[in-house]
């Protein structure tokens, strides 16, 4: 009974904060609300007798990832950024699709739960069990992920490398000083990589002005 009460309280918390995330104008508030929502989700895991997952949820998502988000938001000085205008129809369609999606999902899951309601075997989710499975049964995808992460790091570094004002990449073959070009990545302004390269060329601008209508003749 208590479980049920706790569940509903935290479910409500999770949903409310999730709504705040998407509705609030200030991105910092949004990010913090997401943290709160993650905490509430962690409680769900506890209720499902998966404390290790709950801990992971808090450490990885609420701790690491969201803090990173906050850093980025603050570095980019986003808190005063007003939301760009959204067309009403865009918004309306967004709501309609979301509602349709949500209703459908709930409908299907309930229907499914109805059919399979009898299955109740709790699954073993302590750190040891998960660790063993991860490094035994799932060692292959686990190692694949490491390659994925390596590629991601390369990509992040490449994209965040600064280019000089003439639009020449600092990593070009004729890098003047020969110093380690990766040093540039440490610059605090890495968030806005390529657009401080000056005004766009007129040709690019005109192309952009009419991205879909080049062939209208």
């Amino acid at each position, binding site marked *: 009974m208590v479980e049920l009460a706790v569940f509903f309280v935290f479910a409500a918390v999770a949903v409310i904060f999730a709504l705040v995330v998407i509705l609030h104008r200030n991105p910092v508030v949004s990010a913090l609300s997401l943290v709160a929502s993650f905490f509430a989700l962690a409680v769900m895991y506890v209720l499902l007798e998966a404390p290790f997952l709950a801990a992971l949820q808090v450490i990885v998502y609420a701790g690491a990832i969201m803090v990173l988000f906050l850093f980025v938001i603050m570095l980019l000085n986003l808190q005063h950024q007003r939301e*760009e*205008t959204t067309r009403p129809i865009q918004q309306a369609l967004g709501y309609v699709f979301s509602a349709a999606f949500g209703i459908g999902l709930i409908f299907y899951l309930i229907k499914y739960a109805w059919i399979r309601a009898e299955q109740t075997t709790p699954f073993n989710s302590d750190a040891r069990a998960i660790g063993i499975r991860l490094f035994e049964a799932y060692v292959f995808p686990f190692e694949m992920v490491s390659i994925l992460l390596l590629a991601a790091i390369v990509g992040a570094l490449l994209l965040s490398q600064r280019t000089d004002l003439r639009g020449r990449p600092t990593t070009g073959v004729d890098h003047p000083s020969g110093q380690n070009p990766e040093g540039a990545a440490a610059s605090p302004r890495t968030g*806005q990589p390529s657009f401080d390269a000056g005004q766009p060329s007129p040709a690019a601008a005109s192309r*952009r002005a009419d991205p879909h209508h080049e062939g209208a003749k």
Partner: protein
Amino acid sequence: MLDKLWLIPLIPFAGFLLNGLFGKKIGNGLVTAVALAASGLTAMVSTLAVFQYLGAYPDHGRHLDRVYNWFTAGGIGTDVAFQLDPLSIVMLMVVTWVGFLIHLYSVGYMGEEDGYGRYFAYLNLFLSAMLILVLGSSYLFIFVGWEGVGLCSYLLIGFYYDRDYAAAAGKKAFIVNRIGDFGFLIAMFLMFNYAGTVDFAGVQSMAARGQLTPTVITAICLLLFLGACGKSAQIPLYIWLPDAMAGPTPVSALIHAATMVTAGVYMLVRSNLLYRMSPSAMMVVALIGGLTALFSATIAVAQNDIKKVLAYSTVSQLGFMFIGVGVGAFTSGIFHLVTHAFFKACLFLGAGSVIHAMGGEQDMRKMGGLRKKIPTTFWTFTVATIAISGFPPFAGFFSKDEILASAFATPYFPAVGKLVWLMGTVAAFFTAFYMFRLWYLTFTGDFRGTHEQEHHLHESPWTMTFPLQVLAVLSIIGGFIGLPQMLHTPVTNLLEHWMQPVIPEIEGIGKLIEIPVGTEATVALVSTLLAALAWYLARQRYRGRGLAADLATEQSHPGLVHTLENKYYVDEGYDATVVTPLRQLSIFSWKVIDGIIDGTLGLVGYTVAAIGDLLRFFQTGNVRNYALMLFGAVVILMWVFA
């Protein structure tokens, strides 16, 4: 030779490669030599092969020369194999020899044009593809040639690219043909599904053994006919042929009169067994043929461009061939194909000679009195005109009357047969009329062009007149290969006996036509009299008077003349019903379906200023709409399908 049939299409292909790759370097003289050698050698090798065939197959059976296995893995392929049988031989002889004559003619006609080497390269490529089409032993393999001739036709129609309509006309031809090809392709899939093969003999034997249901056979027949409609310019897909006249005149003679456009007739005769098992499909063929014959003959009456008249005439004559095939007189269809190749090629080449003499002028209103200036062209043209109009004993008389008599006597659908006969007879009347109108306007009366043109008038070189003379002679005697029964000559119905093995009599499958002598005589008499009447009327109206009579008609019946001149507004109709909507649909799918984003959802705020701004990019812009669209699609999938 018989085991090297593949050489026949390969020789012109080699000519294509040589002229296509080195045409610019080796100069016009060598280009001519290569092109003539390729086409002449092809013709000679083919003839040699035919003689060997006659020796090796006294019963005129099917000779099969399997070259290699194109693809059979997966069970839906076929061999690359060539076959020789009476039907192939008829086509082979027409294609190679008429092809050679037209190559020869082109030497004179195209002599001063740019792109001489390119022209002959395409022409040789066409010959090669056409020979694959004629000699291939399965539907799938002849489809290669079928598409190949379409491609060459496209390239050759667009040959004069500096005339802006030429490229458009070529494209129209290609696309319309592709629409027809869809019938051909689906028909092949049906054959694979139900018969398990696309080999001619295989499909026919499956059908003969009753392995295919009538519905399937009818479907296959109708789909094949759709393909034939595209290639052979029948209603409703005939619209490309008149525009195809934008190409050089020898091309019109070779591709758009003598050979390629008759491919549809050839294929239907090839499939005669299937058609005989499906009278309803035959009826469709006969009716479409009759309608096309009549319809385009009336259009031809009001055309003033000499090539346009001949183009509509070709459509109309092809309609006659389909009448023959449709009513079950397959041999007469082929008969008319052969005689038509002779006299229509002669007419086109003659028209080319006229145009050549006139310095490129094609408008008959500016001609007149050419009789004395270009005598050889004149007499050959006259012979061909008489032949197409159907006066005995010229070639066209025999073939056309056999078709009309067969339509009258057809056992498959007697009532409809009479109707088709009526359409054909009226069409024949118009044929004689517009041909003599053309003849009088061009060759009699006073010259109506400019002084310069008059000064320029000259007979064409021998390379052009020689093919004309040969074809004229053939237009006279070509009909003797199919003399009707009633004449009691020693060699009656030569062609029919020759074709016997291809159109076998099989127990329980639609019988062949027996034409009563009385019917044949009556039909022949009626159409000859009508042709004479048409000639008389044309003579009254146009002899020495130019177009005065037409102008008078225009004043009294402006609507009628306009309708005819504008070809019943069919092109406009197509534009309004097919082309414009297609274009609009295209713009719709591009601008609206894709532009749901930019257009409908209206992100006008996507301005130039936003470009460099990454942050704004994140927050406005297409991406949001794209994502919305993705999400919407998922929701639709979820609700509609899941």
